[in-house]
């Protein structure tokens, strides 16, 4: 049984069929790419996987559990993490707090009575794990900076770090390289590979940077106007004429 098994996900918005019976399987530890032109429905697919949107049809099974009707937070706790195309950070929090809050959430040790007794400060363990992730993403120099002072690129890294703190089994990345320069993108790719080899995290990557996709993903899915038009090994898919036409805008 695959780690993620999404079957026939269909989503319509007031007349537009954003997703038309899209199915996808992701195995543990795998790197999969999801590509397609703007408006193809990639973000919508992420939203359906994690429950931010309710699909009109289809089912989501993750880690042998049916999550089709589960609320977002349940799916997150089941082990799906994500970042956002339009960056979503917690205004008024430091970088470190972004990761601490995710860590606390993963542990589930937050109790109201502890708050009242002022026992809710982060433990040494929590701090150490957060620091490790900060170092992994090279964010330790801005650990205590307010999130508002970060560049867009580093903001994306904070999102990745926050998602990693929940120790997801599957990490959904929505265009992580936009806002990053070439060296930052390369560093991010390295970091992701390190995380994968260390923790066996599967990654589903939505990305426009073809080089990033080519070097990172083993398998690809291609969406166009809400329909899957191709799937298979990265090199084969990127080489196919149909994909080149739809995605890369090439005329054959």
């Amino acid at each position: 049984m695959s780690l993620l098994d999404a079957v026939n996900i269909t989503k319509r918005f007031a007349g537009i069929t954003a997703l038309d019976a899209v199915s996808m399987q992701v195995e543990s530890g795998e790197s999969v790419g999801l590509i397609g032109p703007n408006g193809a429905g990639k973000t919508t697919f992420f939203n359906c996987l994690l429950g931010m949107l309710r699909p009109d049809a289809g089912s989501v099974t993750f880690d042998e559990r049916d999550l089709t009707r589960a609320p977002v937070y349940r799916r997150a706790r089941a082990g799906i993490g994500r970042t956002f195309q339009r960056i979503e950070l917690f205004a008024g929090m430091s970088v470190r707090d972004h990761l601490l809050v995710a860590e606390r959430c993963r542990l589930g040790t937050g109790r109201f009575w502890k708050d009242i007794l002022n026992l809710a400060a982060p433990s040494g363990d929590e701090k150490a794990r957060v620091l490790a992730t900060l170092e992994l993403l090279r964010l330790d120099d801005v650990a205590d900076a307010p999130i508002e002072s970060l560049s867009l690129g580093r903001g994306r890294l904070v999102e990745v770090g926050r998602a990693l703190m929940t120790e997801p089994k599957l990490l959904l990345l929505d265009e992580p390289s936009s806002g990053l320069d070439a060296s930052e993108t390369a560093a991010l790719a390295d970091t992701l590979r390190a995380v994968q080899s260390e923790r066996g995290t599967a990654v589903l990557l939505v990305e426009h940077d073809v080089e990033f996709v080519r070097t990172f993903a083993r398998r690809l899915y291609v969406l166009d106007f809400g329909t899957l038009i191709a799937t298979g090994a990265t090199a084969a898919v990127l080489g196919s004429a149909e994909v080149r036409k739809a995605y890369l805008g090439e005329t054959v």
Partner: protein
Amino acid sequence: MTDFITYVIQGIPFGCVFALVAVGLVLTYKTSGVFNLAFGAQAFVAASLYYVLHVRHGWPTLLAFALVVLVISPLLGLLLDVLIFRHLRTASPIAKLVSSLGLLVAVPEIVTILVLGESSTFGVVGIWWNDNALYRFSDYVIDGKEMAIIVSTLLVVLLLGLLFRFAPIGLRMRAVVESPRMTELAGVNADRVSAFSWMLSSLLAGLAGVLLAPLYASLAPQNFTTLLIAAIAAAAFARLTSIPMALVGGLLLGIIQALLSGYLPPASVIAQSVKPTLPFAALFLLLLFWPGLRSAIQNKDPLSGVDPPPDPSVAVTRGRFLTNATRVSGVVVGTGVLLWLLTAATTYWIGIATTAVVLSIVFLSITVITGMAGQVSLCQATFAGVGAFSTAQIVKVLGLSVLPTLLLGAAVAAVVGALLAVPMLRLGGIFLSLGTLAFAVMFDTLLAPLGWVSGGAHPVSVPRPIGFVDDRPFLILCVVVLAIVSVFVIFIRRGTTGRYLTALRGSETAARSIGINPTRIRILAFAVSAGIAGLGGGILAVQKGVAVKEDFGYFYGLFFVVLVVTLMPSTVEGAINAGVGFALVPEVLKLVGVSSSWQFVLFGLGAITYARHPEGVLEFQKGKSLAAIQKRLPARLRGPVPGPTPVPTGGAD
């Protein structure tokens, strides 16, 4: 059968007024995203001006009517749009709601002070040539005032229909109502459309005000506010989108109300409380169960994807200099005042100080729910009332001693808060605020008058705890409770709950994506907040020696929010400022020799700035003046100059 028709006919005039208000609400909501609570205030402005011109100065009816309804009212609408709401276009709906709430509190007081004065406002005359003329339609009779309402409403419906069907601006408005973004893409000037719709809706407010005024014995702003809240039910029936449905909803509301009061035995308790409660109960139920309304919340504009991102949230980091300056001066002044109170002050001033302290406790509940959880609850005064009544009743019935009972009262309020939060939180945003408002008014009309709640005509007295009977010891007790609750709030904010709430405020989508359960954490916030309000309310009752329902009316709930939001909604210090302001500002105004109503004007206008200064306008000003002072200091003494650094951090999807 004739009874039935009689009742229906009796219900139509009020139904028409509800309909006019509902149409106005839908218009501004759809064209500018503002749920305009100030609509009642606009109606009151028109009614007052009309009264002064027509009754006091003897202007002819038509002239007064034309000037007030056709000229001044639209101008007022234009003014509101140009001065306030146009600048809030990208603000969140909740910020817009708070701004209009500020107007609702401030504007009627301005009118009362500047236009009506102290003299009585009895004898409002309607616009019909003879208010008391009777018109017979076979067996049924209506009088001149009602005739005026029905005829005007028919005219309005006709003109609106023509406007939307044939006039270019009407067609554009209709397009904006369908999809604001689509219209903007098509090159329609949104400013013009929004200005026009504000003028039109303000005209409707003026008309409703003038028509409604003669139905009451005298002009009182509360009547207009209550009517506004009632008409929200009709707007909710129309899912805040459809103008014809708003008309139908208004009429239905009026008719059902008349049917109820007709068929229920007139003297029964049920009849007396059910009729006035109906619109608020209807609003409450519609919010929860009206399917179209919920989907109106979920299904956004098909083009919402092309929206520019919302305004960058602003990092409001207080400079260390300001923090320290505030802390030091706070401690010095606080200790000084306390010493004076405990030694030299008169009973009068001790009473005022106690009120300040007790209200600070109540206001800490707003720090939790609005400052921390980011929800605008309009029923905090009601939670205080629940705490006060429970405390009083438990002491009376079970004979428990007062101090532990205060905690029980707080617990009852917390349970009520949690129970209310469960359905309300599904709504979120302005619908949650409207739901809490409906709850507050329902409590006032349905529950608060009952014997087992407030004691009815004989309010329940509460003794002061033994050892704290005198004013000075009681003040000390209150200060101690305030200190404990403050620390409690600070610990919650620092703790897991506070961090989760900050995360949810920053980005609910992202918070859920890391596994935070928003419902659970917000119910907790509601319960804590209601509990704190209940504790404050209980202590207020103990201070006065009696739990009086008038102390906890819905209007206080509105005023409390306005007050705290103007000062500093997010900190303990802000709640204490608000408590001091609540008790002290009327005294200061008395000293200066002006009406204490100015406090409503002051804080009401302050709340309008909430959209731009969510940290509280006072805090903003403090930061600005401090920055100015620091610039003049030699560099060595200068701390980092405080000031917000706006950087996009995203927002709700």
